[in-house]
Every structure is written in C-alpha cells, then in structure tokens.
C-alpha cells in the first residue's frame, strides 16, 4: 500500500505508525474538517476560559 511504503526506509520509520489512506484523506476533507474546526474551537475556548 502506498501509504505504507515509508516503513521500509529506515529503522526509525519501521518502528512508528503511519496513517492509512482514509485517515490522510479525512485531514483535508472539507466537510469533515469544517466539523472539526467547530469542535477544536470549542475545545480551545474551554481551555482558554479555564486559564483566565
């Protein structure tokens, strides 16, 4: 699988984890990221309010 090709490049890469094709696609999926934009902003505002 293309997203797994880096595993063989060196020992460092072999021993970590790699996102699959779906996980990578969702990072720039506009609809999903619009939802995440709202969620992350809420999470950040909660932390901001706890800090003031």
């Amino acid at each position, binding site marked *: 699988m293309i*997203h797994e090709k*880096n*595993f063989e*490049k*060196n020992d*460092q*890469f072999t*021993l*970590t*984890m*790699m*996102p699959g094709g779906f996980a990578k696609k*969702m*990072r*720039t*999926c*506009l609809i999903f*990221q*619009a939802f*995440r*934009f709202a969620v*992350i*902003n809420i*999470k*950040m505002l*909660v*932390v*901001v*309010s*706890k*800090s*003031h």
Partner: protein
Amino acid sequence: MARLIVMGGGVSGHTTATFAKKWLGKEHEVVVVTPNSQWNWIPSNIWVGVGQMTKKDVVFPLAPVYKKAGIDYRQAKAVSIHPEGKEGDETPFITIEYTSPDKAGQTEEISYDYLVNATGPKLNFDATPGLGNGAGQMGSHTVSVCTADHAVHANEELQKIFDKAKNGTRQKILVGTGHGLCTCQGAAFEYIFNIEHEAKKAGVRDMLDIKWISNESFMGDFGMGGLHMKVGGYVVSSKLFAESLFAERDVPWLIGAHVNKVENGKAHYELLDGTMGVEEFDFAMLIPPFAGVGIKAYAKDGSDMTDKIFAPNGFMKVDADYSGKPYSEWKASDWPRTYQNPDYKNMFAAGIAFAPPHPISKPMKSVNGTDIFPTPPRTGMPAGIIGKAVAYTICDMIKDPNAKPHEASMAEMGAACVASAGKGLTSGTAAAMTVYPVVPDFEKYPGTGRDTNYTFGEIGLAGHWIKHVLHHMFIWKAKLRPAWTLIPE
C-alpha cells in the same frame, strides 16, 4: 499620578501596556520602551520563511497604535535598572538608549513607580560557534525564522535551494535546534514541514533530503516534556504522533543532539551517548538558544547588583523557587504565580523575560557531561495571560500599594497551540493542540501531569484554518481595533 514603564513591546509587553493604559486612563502614565519600531506576529514568520507571506503581512508600526492608546512610546533599548534610585534621590529609574533614527545612541533616564520587564529573548546565536557571527547576530552559514527580517532572508535562500533542485542537483536541508539548551522546537517543527509541503508543491520533493536535528530526548517533547492525549480509547504520548508525522513525510530525525559548531555546510554535534558527528547541509535553519537581553541592575550606591535581580541566563528573577532542586523533587508550585521580583515589589517580569525555576523537560547530560535538553517554552497564550495578570496587579497596586497581586501560574493555565504543517486553503494542515496545564502537575494529575480531558491534539485542515484565524485575530487585537479587549489571550 503613577508611571508604569513596560520594557518590551512583544506579545507580553504589548498586552501589559495596552490593558494597563485602558484601565488606568489618562490619570496615570504608561511608557513602552522597545528597540523595535514594529510589532511582529511571530507565529506567522514561518510562512514568511517559505514565501507564503510577506514581511508586511506579519508586522505593523507601533507608533500610531501607541499614540491612539495614549501610551508614551520610546523606540529605545533598556540598558540598566536602578530600583533604589541613586545617591540623593531614591526614585527608581531605568536608563535607555534610543534606537530610533532621529535619536540613535542618545541615552536617557526615566523614573518609574512600576516596572515590567517584558523584553523577551536575546537570540543567542553566538552560544554556538559559527551559528552566530561573533558580534551577537546570526552568522552566514544558516538561516532563521525568529524575526520577520530573518524569515525574509530564509525564504530567499530556500528558493535558491529549490532552483538547484529543479536543475537536477540533490539538496540537503537540515532544520532544528542549534544548541543543546534551545527551546522553540515547535517553530522548527512548523518550518521543516512547511518546507516539505512547499517542496511538494514546487515538484522538487524527490530531490531533497530533509532532516530534523534537535536537543529533545524523544520526538514530540517540544520543551514541555511532551504531552499525553486520549486517542482511540488509549492515552497516548505525543512521541508516537510526532514520530508518525516525520515518518509519513519522509523526514528522519537526530535527537538528543547538542550542535556545538557550525561551519559552511556542516553542523557538528554531540549526542547524549557521547557520539560526535557532523551533519552536512545545503540549507539549514537552526533555532538559537535564548538568553535575557542583558540589562544590568545597579544599587543606590552605583554597585552592580545584576546577579541579585537576574538569573545567570539573564532572565529576571520572580516569585519562583530557584533553589536548584533535583528533577525528582520538581513541583508545579516551583513556578511563579505573581511574576513580582522578590526584592522589589514594584518590579515584574512577564513572558519570556522571567526566569523559570527549572526546565519542564527532564534534564539530560551526555556521557561527557554536556547538558542536552530543551529549556521551557513560553508560547503566546501564557505570555499574554501573564502580561494581563501583571497589568491587573499594577493597576490595583496603584490604587492600593498593599493590594493582593493577581496570579497566573503556568501550572494552572493551559495553552492552545497550532503548529502548521503546510499552508494551503484546501491543502494545508496543522496540528491543533491544547495542553492543560502548561507546566505539568504530577501531584494533581498523577501519571501524565496533565488533565487528559483538556489535553488533545489532531492534525488537519481545520488546524490550518485556525492558524489563519489566529493570525488575523491577534493582529487585529494588537492594533487595538474595535472590540480588541474581547479577544482572549
């Protein structure tokens, strides 16, 4: 009428001065002393460094903003502090040296009732031979994204590298920390992945070897000892996600490294296991270590008391525990709460300018005895919160000298951070994170030191949009545009 002097006009100093002036009104004076004529939104410098923003996008002139706010603005650097005054006059004062073109080199004394040191870091390039030019400035072998001008130069050099790559010559890019005691690994992280992203866009990624070098003992430390977050039913260390991103983007790493010399195309380093090595490069961005800006302090009789007011690293002592206790005894309560100098209660240090009691990350020494570990970060949100708390305290003290200081411990506040991994309205990504608290409290949160309900991170386009929003929002706030006080630090 009282006079507050704020030394420094960055995130922390600007926040202190503008809020103090707003709350004090015309009855009291607020003076800002800063050698810079412009305010810089530093988090966006990395985009200037890859040509995705211009210098104009990240700076604006301070004079008109301070004039609008009624703040007395002196474009000058602070040279010395005299908290006891001098013989015959006990009024405390500072001495400044103007950097504005019309008064360059002129010195002046300015008395104060309250003083805030928000001078930020000295970019200590000369701490690593070859990283600096020997005269306190960046050397010629590497680039930097610490200032807007540095970032403009960095992009110019980066484009030359891309051109060589396009012409078929393989190029090596090295990004990370330029000394064993650096902080700001996050900025280097952003820069390396923005370079990688731009390289892909330019069609030259396969002609570049991009490598990370840092003083962290594990990937994802970022000067905070890493963080733990809940993912898929597990509580996971940031190490896993940091390593994953580097592997995914084909960027190998060299960590536990103290860069001890830089030459043309070569970075010499020592590792924690004592190994000495050399990384060759065609282009390198290595963050310099930070120090205090070098302000001196004098007693009433003129004797030098810099060591009393400042820690050896040049940062100002505040209400922190400087006893030098070992790592096993570190506590959240070691960290300051009020940022008042312990000897002079009308003097404060905010943002990067205060001396931390110790690092957050575990201190490590190489087998040769070389210190190699990240020093603590003071990112924008805590810097702003501290600045505002100090402003509150001073305004209360002006009304009542015995007023209780406001508190803003980094062990009781969180931070929201966004680390860009590439710019693009529909193709960009960034790691959006919250950490609560910034300084881990292992007594309150056994195991991770942080509340995992409020500590998280994820990478995606949403994070990139947030970084854009923050860019515009904080510049709006710093310019004191309408409703600026409603924007939280």
